[in-house]
């Protein structure tokens, strides 16, 4: 079996396992939906100034996308690693030709597919329930690339968390602790103008910032996004490498 064949086998098994957990499927898609409905339709934005959401609705689209791009891979990959470890699956896989890199790539592909679908749902909902207007241009073709690269990055991050945490509960707690600050302090829902200057370097250090800037440049304020994609890609490769190294092989 070739490397691609092994990745395909692992991804197929992981996809089947996910799709047959109905509650997991439901909440994976329901979570971003409820977020868009609450913030986009109920609270709404106040472009004239003041309030929690002072920017036009289109500004927050990267934030909605970031919810699934960030939370889902962190918790899914982390939990999957905890599940594999608890069930002796890594012990078994260590005696097969499947490498740790191949395992993580396979699960990243599954997450890209799931989160890609969730992202489409979010975009549709944002258009349907808010007055946001998307910029339609050739750059729109880069949006799936941004989503895929960011998902890969956070899959790597999730693998690291999964390896460090000693239980599924620990993974969920750790991923929430990491994800929540990142979500709100990465130019997603909170514009940098609302943050103190001394904190801006921390914003620049967040990988999610480059996802938010890039997707905003594509969807809301047309601008160049190549630099953001390059930074995000380099970080994704780094996190994937670290994540693959962290995937347990021994006890």
């Amino acid at each position, binding site marked *: *079996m070739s490397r691609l064949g092994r990745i395909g*086998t692992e991804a197929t098994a992981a996809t*089947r396992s996910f799709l047959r957990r109905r509650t997991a499927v439901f909440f994976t898609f329901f979570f971003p939906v409820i977020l868009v409905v609450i913030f986009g339709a109920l609270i709404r934005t106040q472009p004239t100034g003041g309030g929690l959401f002072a920017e036009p609705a289109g500004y927050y689209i990267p934030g909605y996308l970031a919810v699934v791009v960030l939370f889902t891979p962190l918790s899914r990959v982390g939990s999957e690693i905890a599940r594999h470890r608890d069930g002796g699956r890594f*012990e078994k896989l260590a005696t097969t030709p499947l490498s740790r890199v191949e395992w993580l790539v396979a699960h990243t592909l599954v997450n890209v597919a799931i989160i890609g679908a969730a992202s489409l749902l979010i975009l549709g909902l944002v258009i349907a329930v808010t007055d946001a207007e998307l910029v339609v241009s050739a750059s729109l073709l880069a949006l799936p690339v941004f989503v895929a690269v960011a998902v890969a990055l956070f899959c790597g991050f999730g693998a690291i968390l999964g390896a460090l945490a000693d239980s599924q509960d620990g993974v969920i707690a750790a991923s929430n602790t990491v994800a929540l600050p990142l979500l709100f302090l990465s130019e997603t829902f909170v514009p940098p103008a609302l943050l103190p200057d001394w904190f801006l370097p921390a914003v620049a250090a967040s990988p999610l910032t480059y996802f938010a800037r890039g997707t905003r440049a594509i969807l809301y304020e047309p601008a160049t996004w190549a630099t953001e994609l390059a930074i995000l890609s380099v970080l994704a490769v780094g996190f994937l490498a670290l994540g693959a190294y962290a995937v347990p092989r021994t*006890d």
Partner: protein
Amino acid sequence: MNETVPSEPTDGTNATDPVLVAEAVRKSYGDVVALDGADLRVDTGEVFGLIGPNGAGKTTLVRALTGTTEVEGGVHVLGVPPREVDPQRVGLLPQSFDPPARLTARELVDYYGGLYDSARDTEGVLRDVGMAADADAWYETLSGGQKRRTCVATAIVNDPDLLFLDEPTTGIDPAGRRSIHRLVERLAADGTTVLLTSHAMDEVERLADRVALLRDGDVVASGAPDDLIAAHGGRPRLSVTLADPAAGSVDAVAGALEAGTTDPDGSTNVGTRVDVEPTENGLRVLGVRPEGIGAVVDALADAGVAFESLSWSEPTLEDVYLELTGEEYSPRGDGGLVTDSSGNGTQPADASTVAEVGDVADGGDVVDGGDVVDGGDA
């Protein structure tokens, strides 16, 4: 597996080289020593049984041999360090293995088979483990035995030369166990080397060509089951259920045996002894051969002791296990290791000690060692 032919090694080893070698293997988890200098050698085509109490280090040794834990000492598998082994040649059933719950048995076999360069036909593997009829049920809906058989299937799907089965029949009913036993026998007949761990001594005795007993992280005995039984299993015993297990029966029967004219050990060796000891329901005569049972019956009649039933048995691997692990005392009077009455540690036993400790274990009254009968003098 009927069509399987043992493959020739492709890594420079030859058929006479040991498949598994562990030399002075040590492993600690903090202050807990899991392996303390364990040595092991398994030859090509052997079914090798690994037995020992919980916590003796069996699973850690399996992990050391499969390269899934780091250990000190020397470990070679198929002539190379464990992590350099061609995975195509190795199959593993971990002790605690819980595959994806919402894949069917067929999908699980397909999945693990799909990770290898070549794999056996899924349907054939499912038939081998007796899962063909339930192959389309999700793993989580299977019974415990079906789950374990499915896990065994994932271990043989790559048609390995070397198969590790860590407690393969745990939770399996007798029929399922037999199907696994037949499978292991077929694999062995086809040349597969099998390392088997189990708490079922009858299983190991039936399947294994050689056995190693681990205790406190070290191999304390190894050899063919028959050799181990001969060395450590003790003597045949005749259990007698008395109609009225009153005090004094043991002395009376022992006296009658001593005074009798037939040698109750069934041999002509003067000086061979039998021992009589009390049990909860009567008494037990140690060292009796089948042909000596009549002498015991005569002695019972001579002593005026009525009995309800007789049960004769030979020593088994379980007796070896109990003897060498000291987990539970099984009195023999042959100077083996026995657990002291507090259950802490072991000590050499002489005949009188045997009687005392044995009675404690049986929950009966402590008696002197005066029940020993010299059969040769009878």
